[in-house]
């Protein structure tokens, strides 16, 4: 049997990229090519070290997961030491002591996550060698990227919510640093700040949820939490468990860009494209989905919150898709597409189909990373142009990019056989069992997805060239170090879905459904749901599958007709839609509404209210206190002058008055005193003489 050597060394997996990050951020400046005589060789050091550490993590992850599969229980927990040990306090279950380990948990769920994270990270690191090759701060970029991988691996490997929160905050920090990588550009710096601040709101929810969980259950360790929840029955109405779940979900909406906290993600496209691919598409933004799936035992007990999760997911999916329909920036289309796909994942979580959510997370990581890297390759070829209105007919000029992006597009649209089809179709089927309304929203979103993705393809690669003549002169395919990752991800996008085929395809052996079986032990929360699936629904499932493929085809065909065959019709349609088009182009004015409500309303309005409060109440209090102090000091002066000093003067006056007769003797005449002497002597002498 396989040993447990890799499992015991699981703590090393996040440490490799941390090592790379520390080296880069401490001495990377010395390796900076700019102005350095040995520029080429030192750049090679960075290019080898940073992707190398991630590759090591990936290899160790594979080793650990293989060994995990060999364990009978398929759960491996390593607790290094107690990291936070608090004082005992009275909790809901008697005296509790807050404790958080520095510990790692490898189970099927985190196994999937570490493979996705380290694998995709490695591919994108390799791509970045080519994409960032001409940029300044090469070492800084890779340092941040490695730091991100470290925190992301901490997030998914943590064995408790507190350590997970450390990774959670860490990836937020790296996201901020990388969005603002070109910090001399104001829009990039602002976008970084926006991402950070919006995420704070969600993080506050996470933290509150975490504390509420500890106060209620007395533990934050995943396994202990699951055990504590195992014998509880679903909560009726909205109670403490629902509140806990809702707070955790608020954290997830921040990190995973769900309504209402999704606004930071489109702006995050200001960062370098590999960052958009890695952090804002494939890995970090899925942390919220992972967290909800990790808390599945909790969400199972909180049906009210689960419903909210599903509704928010569905609403976000269709909202983001509707915005993506009309955006002109190639990366923004993909950003809204990411938000929309994350909405799908939460839809699945909401109806209790966690494995499907993770399945979609896994397939989405391939095709969305591919699409982003492909768009990066397009931007690279066009010398930095991101506006699709100034692209077109690039198909033959950058063929590798075109073919790989085509694979990604078909995968996300849900063309049968490709990765996205399996996961999205399974989500729609599970959601259909949950709520037909949410399913309908998902179906419409699927059509929109197909439409905007083909619109992107059509505007970029087909039709007539609208590229500036100056730019067109040096369009070139990207170097192999960039195209190779595209090819790898394209293969993933095509093939990755075949480990989760529908149960319906009974001709295929169970090995094709390995994903669900693999995850089952970690997602005990949905076992009941899977068993309750109606057996007679085979016909309905075929019908739904056909329907979703049909709407995807419809979306593709419509986009093809509007943007490739008859661009004039697209123009006419845009004019006909009028205000609706403008509103969607302006992202339904959500940013403006937030500006109005929160930035100007709550923050600035609240600020001026605070100023008024300060002026009136605080300053008034200070002034009033001053006035009171002056008044009392005046009273005190009066008291001092008349009572205290008066008493002193009165006594001195008394002494003066009583001394008056005695004073009269003190004439100051020397001879008067002498006379008294003489008289005194005479008296004494007279007395003696007389006797």
């Amino acid at each position, binding site marked *: 049997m396989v040993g447990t050597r890799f499992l015991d060394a699981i703590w090393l997996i996040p440490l490799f990229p941390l090592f790379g990050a520390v080296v880069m951020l401490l001495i990377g400046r010395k390796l900076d090519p700019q102005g350095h005589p040995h520029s080429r060789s030192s750049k090679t050091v960075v290019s080898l070290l940073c992707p190398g550490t991630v590759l090591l993590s990936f290899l160790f992850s594979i080793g650990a997961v293989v060994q995990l599969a060999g364990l009978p229980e398929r759960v491996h927990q390593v607790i290094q030491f107690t990291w936070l040990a608090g004082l005992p306090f009275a909790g809901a279950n008697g005296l509790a002591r807050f404790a958080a380990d520095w510990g790692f948990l490898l189970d099927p769920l985190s196994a999937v996550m570490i493979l996705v994270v380290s694998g995709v990270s490695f591919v994108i690191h390799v791509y970045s060698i080519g994409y960032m090759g001409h940029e300044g701060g090469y070492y800084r970029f890779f340092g941040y990227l490695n730091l991100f991988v470290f925190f992301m691996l901490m997030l998914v490997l943590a064995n408790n919510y507190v350590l997970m929160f450390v990774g959670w905050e860490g990836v937020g920090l790296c996201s901020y640093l990388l969005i603002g990588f070109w910090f001399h550009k104001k829009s990039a710096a602002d976008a970084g700040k926006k991402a950070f601040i919006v995420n704070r709101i969600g993080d506050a929810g996470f933290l509150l949820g975490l504390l509420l969980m500890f106060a209620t259950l007395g533990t934050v360790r995943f396994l202990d939490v699951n055990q504590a929840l195992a014998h509880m029955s679903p909560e009726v109405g909205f109670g403490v468990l629902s509140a806990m779940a809702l707070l955790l979900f608020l954290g997830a909406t921040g990190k995973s860009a769900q309504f209402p906290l999704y606004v930071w993600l489109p702006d995050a496209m200001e960062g370098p494209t590999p960052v958009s691919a890695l952090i804002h598409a494939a890995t970090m933004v899925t942390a919220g989905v992972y967290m909800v799936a990790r808390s599945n035992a909790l969400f199972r007990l909180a049906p009210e919150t689960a419903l909210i999760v599903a509704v928010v997911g569905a609403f976000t999916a269709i909202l983001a898709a509707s915005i993506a329909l009309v955006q002109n920036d190639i990366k923004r289309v993909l950003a809204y597409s990411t938000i929309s796909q994350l909405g799908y994942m939460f839809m699945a979580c909401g109806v209790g189909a966690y494995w499907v959510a993770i399945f979609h997370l896994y397939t989405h990581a391939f095709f969305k990373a591919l699409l982003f890297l492909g768009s990066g390759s397009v931007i690279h070829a066009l010398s930095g142009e991101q506006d699709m209105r100034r692209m077109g007919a690039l198909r033959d000029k950058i063929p590798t990019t075109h073919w790989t992006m085509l694979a990604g597009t078909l995968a996300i649209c849900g063309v049968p056989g490709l990765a996205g089809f399996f996961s999205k179709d399974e989500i729609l089927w599970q959601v259909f069992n949950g709520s037909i309304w949410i399913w309908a929203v998902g179906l419409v979103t699927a059509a929109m997805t197909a439409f905007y993705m083909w619109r992107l393809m059509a505007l970029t690669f087909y039709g007539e060239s609208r590229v500036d003549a100056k730019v067109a002169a040096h369009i070139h395919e990207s170097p192999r170090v960039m195209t190779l990752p595209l090819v790898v991800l394209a293969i993933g996008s095509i093939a990755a879905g075949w480990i989760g085929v529908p149960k319906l395809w009974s001709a295929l052996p169970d090995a094709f459904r390995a994903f669900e079986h693999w995850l089952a032990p970690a997602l005990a929360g949905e076992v009941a749901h899977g068993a309750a699936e109606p057996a007679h629904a085979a016909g309905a499932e075929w019908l739904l599958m056909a329907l979703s493929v049909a709407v995807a085809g419809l979306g593709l065909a419509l986009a093809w007709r509007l943007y490739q065959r008859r661009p004039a019709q697209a123009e006419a349609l845009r004019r006909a839609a009028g205000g609706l088009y403008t509103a969607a182009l302006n992202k339904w004015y959500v940013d403006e509404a937030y500006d109005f409500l929160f930035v100007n309303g709550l923050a600035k309005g609240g600020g001026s209210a605070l100023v008024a409060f300060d002026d009136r109440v605080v300053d008034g209090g200070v002034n009033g206190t001053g006035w009171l102090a002056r008044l009392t000091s005046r009273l005190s002066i009066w008291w001092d002058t008349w009572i205290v000093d008066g008493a002193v003067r009165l006594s001195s006056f008394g002494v003066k008055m009583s001394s008056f007769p005695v*004073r*009269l003797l*003190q*004439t*100051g*005449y*020397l*001879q008067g005193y*002498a*006379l008294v002497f*003489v008289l005194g002597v005479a008296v004494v002498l007279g007395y003696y003489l007389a006797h």
Partner: protein
Amino acid sequence: MLYPITTVHYLMLSAALLVIGTLGVLARRNIVVILMSIELILNAVNINLVAFARHFQNVQGQIFAIFVITVAVAEAAVGLGILIALFRNRKTVQADEIELLKW
């Protein structure tokens, strides 16, 4: 024929000098004169001392008189010094015009 001078004569002279001195201290206004009067009183004492020394045939009284003369010289020197300093400040040596030490 002359009467022999006895101790009583000395004592009477001494008493006369004492009275003259005391009256001088009390009655005269000029401080120089007052100091002179004090010298008279001291010399009255000296005569007393010497007279008793002769009367008891004992030299101690005479020695004591020499002490008194010495001290009187010192006292006169200090007194006159003070008087000069006083005169420089107040332009007067009249005892009745120097009356600051009073209430």
